[in-house]
């Protein structure tokens, strides 16, 4: 069963969005986050939703897949909504004991909740349409200019990709240890929460020790294959911007202009 897990939440599909350079998508996502904080009206969000809808349509990722990501953060969205709802002074709409809902509070909380929802949907489009390895490669290239300020971009990217590579290996290891401990009579299902957490210790310690052993083996194997850092290293798949990325860049810039312009429009 552990064999079948997918890494990240990548949705395999052959769309234009999937084939865009990871760098374009990372920068586009950053731009999108900035835009969400520039928008100051519901009409502005309308524009963002429209654009996001078109993007999702082109990417061919099923909508239910996208909303699945929202489930995990429903609590945070609700909390933001409630906090904003009761915290604003202004025209009173509803009053009960110490709880007061004002028109401003309602407006504000809907605004914040919508912003959060759009933030999560938009950023999840990046991980849904980009393979984890492409993401790390793109990140390595994007961070390269910061090398001269002492940022080890190659090492950061390699660490991320090795971490991704070893998730299934460590899961398998966990599975093995759990079975071994169960065979010795360990019980992971009964008892209260504290008891159960305590029962996890006999799994965590061998896993911890095991991961050091794996790290040592891997370091040796990498050294045997002449790994000596990022200097003088070439890549088999050199990522290059294509015409698609140019078009995407222009569209992103145009949309940024529209969002900025919307700030000065007298919209609701």
């Amino acid at each position, binding site marked *: 069963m552990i*064999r079948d897990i997918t*890494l990240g939440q990548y949705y395999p599909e052959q769309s234009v969005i999937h084939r865009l350079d990871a760098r374009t998508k990372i920068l586009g996502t950053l731009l999108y986050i900035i835009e969400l904080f520039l928008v100051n009206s519901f009409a502005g969000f309308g524009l963002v939703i429209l654009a996001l809808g078109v993007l999702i349509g082109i990417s061919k990722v099923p909508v239910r897949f996208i909303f699945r990501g929202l489930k995990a953060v429903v609590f945070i969205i609700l909390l933001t909504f409630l906090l904003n709802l009761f915290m604003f002074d202004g025209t009173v709409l509803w009053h009960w004991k110490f709880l007061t809902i004002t028109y401003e509070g309602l407006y504000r909380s809907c605004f914040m909740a919508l912003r959060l929802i759009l933030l999560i949907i938009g950023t999840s489009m990046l991980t849904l349409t980009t393979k*984890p*390895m492409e993401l790390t490669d793109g990140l390595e290239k994007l961070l390269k200019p910061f090398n001269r300020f002492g940022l080890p971009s190659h090492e950061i990217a390699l660490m991320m*990709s*090795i971490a*991704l*590579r070893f998730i*299934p*290996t460590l899961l*398998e290891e966990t599975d093995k240890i759990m079975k071994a401990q169960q065979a010795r009579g360990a019980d992971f299902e009964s008892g209260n929460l504290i008891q159960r957490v305590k029962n996890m210790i006999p799994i965590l310690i061998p896993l911890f020790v095991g991961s050091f*052993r*794996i790290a040592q*083996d*891997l370091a*040796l*194997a*990498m*050294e*045997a*294959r*002449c*790994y*000596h850092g990022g200097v*003088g*290293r*070439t*890549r*088999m*798949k*050199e990522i290059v911007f294509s015409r698609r990325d140019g078009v995407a860049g222009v569209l992103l810039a145009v949309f940024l202009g529209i969002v900025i312009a919307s700030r000065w429009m007298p919209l609701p």
Partner: protein
Amino acid sequence: MEPIIRVENLTFEYRKVSPEGPATSFRAVDGVTFEVPSGEFVAVLGMNGSGKSTLAKHLNGLLLPTEGDVWIEGMNTREDDHIWNIRSTVGMVFQNPDNQIVSSVVEDDVAFGPENLGVDPMEIRRRVDEALQAVGMYEQRLKAPHMLSGGQKQRIAIAGAIAMRPKCIVFDEPTAMLDPKGRHQVMDIIHRLHEAGITVILITHFMEEAMQADRLIVMKDGRITDDMPPRDFFADRERIQRARLEMPAIIALREELIRQGLPVDASVQTEEELIEAICQLQ
């Protein structure tokens, strides 16, 4: 002609630091000397703790000798200037297939070595495709390693070594963690690499595998006890016992037949030969 590997009086000590008492050292390899001419297929056999893995790690400078020297094509592994040259000349495949794969995509992993050497991207592509075809894993090139079987993963690791175009590959118990099918496939590839002219050093504790080599080096307590063709070694029951190795089933049966006074030749050591010999008994 300079042999591809020359080991002279190699000694290696592990230092053990314990909280109580002074640091002690353990001599894993003790005064080993041998040469391997280019193109040979050498098996290194020995039980656990005989120092065979430690010896293997000296052959491409992963460990440096405490005493003595190792030369690869005339380059001393102690010299830092040559270390990358040495490691691209002598490739290495380890025991655990999981812990030596770096990337989440098969072909990217095979490309890892050539990428480190700074090979041109087009050339890397060509080498990766060739290496994957050589181990019969070309169809799986875009898969994630964790979806593959142990034997397949080990073949990827071998492809990773081949892609660096080494003259020699050291296999450090490559089949120890595999099922019989995977073991068979890996041994097949090792034979094919040897036929293609690559020098093969196979570290193993499986006698059936050691029998397939041109030359057998037997290790015990960090020393070389025997260095001869495997045929001669396995014909000699005394030697097998002296190395504290378990008798392979065929040899054990042969010895038993001889002990019972049946006229079976002591040189018999494969299944076919034994069947042949038994059929000729009255």
